[in-house]
């Protein structure tokens, strides 16, 4: 579904990623872990097409086509979803208006009919149960005055309504208490399906206790330095990033 080859890039002139290789199959859950500044969020933003980030080398194929040639909204309509680490507030734009506009934009792009108001409400209400969200939040301005937990649940709700093929969760666990974390994880787990892939970006192993990944990758200095299964996350939890860093630097000296 997604294949990243030798990806180099960063913010403006500052190189952050120095050759990422990663392949994600439909139906799998990948986790990318790494210390602060390792390039986790940069990868997420480049995949989503943030205009502030530049790609200097490498290529990304998504469903066989060149992802980097697509605009932000084209990627979204092709089923790529980014759950933001810091969801934005948009005054005066109601949550439900955002959901409806986004969903219908995608349906139009896929040649489907737009949902009418009734169908749409039914869909949204069925998805709200997934994230245990209060109805009232639908009619409030997007994320305005939401608590940290509400913002993250709102991201998962948008994901549930838009039904992406590839969902990237950028530090969705940050700033959540344990109950909110469980709710968010349950929501994600219910959305797992053979057609859908997830890329979880996280600093901590905690989230992975609730959403079991098939693959775990450790990002360091803009490269994936180790890949493995869930046990890698447990190992990391035990020894910390410093052990990995030491090992990596050691290895590099000999390279």
């Amino acid at each position, binding site marked *: 579904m997604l294949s990243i080859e030798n990806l180099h890039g960063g913010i403006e002139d500052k190189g952050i990623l120095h050759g990422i290789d990663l392949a994600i199959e439909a139906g799998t859950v990948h986790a990318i872990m790494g210390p602060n500044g390792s390039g986790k969020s940069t990868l997420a933003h480049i995949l989503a097409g*943030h205009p502030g980030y530049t790609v200097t080398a490498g290529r990304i194929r998504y469903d066989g086509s060149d992802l980097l040639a697509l605009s932000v909204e084209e990627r979204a309509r092709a089923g790529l979803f980014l759950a933001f680490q810091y969801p*934005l507030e*948009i005054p005066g734009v109601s949550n439900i*208006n*955002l959901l409806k*506009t*986004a969903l219908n*934009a995608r349906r139009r792009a896929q040649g489907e009919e737009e949902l009418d108001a009734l169908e749409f409400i039914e869909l949204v209400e069925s998805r709200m149960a997934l994230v245990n969200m209060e109805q009232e939040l639908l009619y409030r301005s997007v994320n305005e005055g939401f608590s940290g937990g509400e913002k993250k649940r709102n991201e998962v709700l948008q994901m549930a309504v838009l039904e992406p093929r590839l969902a990237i969760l950028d530090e969705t666990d940050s700033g959540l208490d344990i109950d909110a974390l469980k709710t968010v994880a349950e929501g994600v787990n219910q959305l797992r399906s053979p057609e859908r892939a997830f890329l979880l970006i996280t600093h901590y192993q905690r989230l992975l206790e609730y959403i079991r990944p098939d693959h775990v990758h450790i990002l360091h200095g803009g490269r994936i330095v180790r890949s493995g299964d869930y046990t890698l996350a447990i190992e990391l939890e035990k020894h910390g990033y410093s052990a990995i860093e030491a090992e990596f630097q050691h290895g590099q000296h000999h390279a």
Partner: protein
Amino acid sequence: MNASKQGVSSLISRTYKHGFVTPIESDTLPPGLNEDVIRTISSKKGEPDFMTQWRLQAYRHWLTMKEPRWSHVHYPGIDYQAISYFSSPKAGKARPKSLDEVDPALLETYNKLGIPLEEQELLAGVAVDAVFDSVSVATTFKEKLAELGIIFCSFSEAVKNHPDLIQRYLGSVVPPGDNFFASLNSAVFSDGSFVYVPPGVHCPMELSTYFRINASSTGQFERTLIIADKNAYVSYLEGCTAPMRDENQLHAAVVELIALDGAEIKYSTVQNWYPGDELGRGGIYNFVTKRGDCRGNRSKISWTQVETGSVITWKYPSCILRGDHSVGEFYSVALTNNLQQADTGTKMIHIGKETRSTIISKGISAGHGQNAYRGLVKMLGSADNARNYTQCDSLLIGDRCGAHTFPYIEVKNASARAEHEATTSKISDEQLFYLRQRGISEEDAVSMIVNGFCKSVFKELPMEFAVEAQKLLAVSLEGAIG
């Protein structure tokens, strides 16, 4: 950002969709202004002598006045002798008695503008007075309203049929010598709408005037007078469009509202005069005086305006809160794109006790547009416990435009309280990215954010107008980003 660049020029060229000209024979006075022209206008309209004298007095006063230059707008001087002060579609001698007699070309014009004059049509709940250049061409639902004692007719008819009301109220809110443009209007005003709602009557439908400038080299000087008698209620809508022309045309209207004890007037405007092209050629100079007088206790006047058109807008719909416990409101969205300039706001003059006013102003600047809020809140010594709350927000789209805020707060009563807040923001790249990541196009995302910004004003508009206003805003912004 790249996506929006393509096709920007094609977007701009289709921006103003009301720019057509109706090919209709007109009876137009030659350009120029003097006492004879004023007498001619007055006699063409068959006015009684008091009206002619009133006009002449205003004209003589106008001659002593200077065109105001204090506002934040810039334009070359206006040659008042190059303007034609009267133009009416040729349709026999008198105004048609029914729609069947109205020139089909005119009916077609209003249909094209989305304002069908056939009463049973789309806007079934709205009574319309259609003003074409200098004259009112049709007023719908008159009979139905008359059953309730409501007078809704053209100004010319009111002068003939209700001279007592005209003599009593005309100029009582905006005196003929009030300001340069109001004086000019008082001298040469051609037509407009008149509304009288009798005591205790709640007007069952929206009343509406649709103003259309068609002829070239003419000015439009309409006059609207609305009186809500004791405990009456009326909601009034005003819309305006004009053809695309390379020349600037002057629109200098006067609107007077009078609310007696317990009465309420809600006045909404969607102003979409031709804004000129992207190089600033052509467009309407919209220099308008609108003022409401809360003459009675517990009366209320509410102005809502959506200003997207005109190359220059200069207007301050105001409230004189004379009655105790009276309420004034001003809700405004003003958008300037390309080379448009707007200097708009309000005046809230608190005279009575326990008077309240609210001002919500949203200014949007794009392209090279200049947008200024100018508002006066004045609380006189008599205004015990008066309250005002003002919020002015500006949104900048691009770094070539300007957003300005000039409040004037004058308080002479220690028990009164005035609060003013203003903010300035731009559409952030991060907000755009967020919406685009959800699959929404950049144009739609901008439009969504702008509409969100204006929400607290749009909710004050009657339903049909609110939808219109949102669409208008999206169209007016096309080509603004990228």
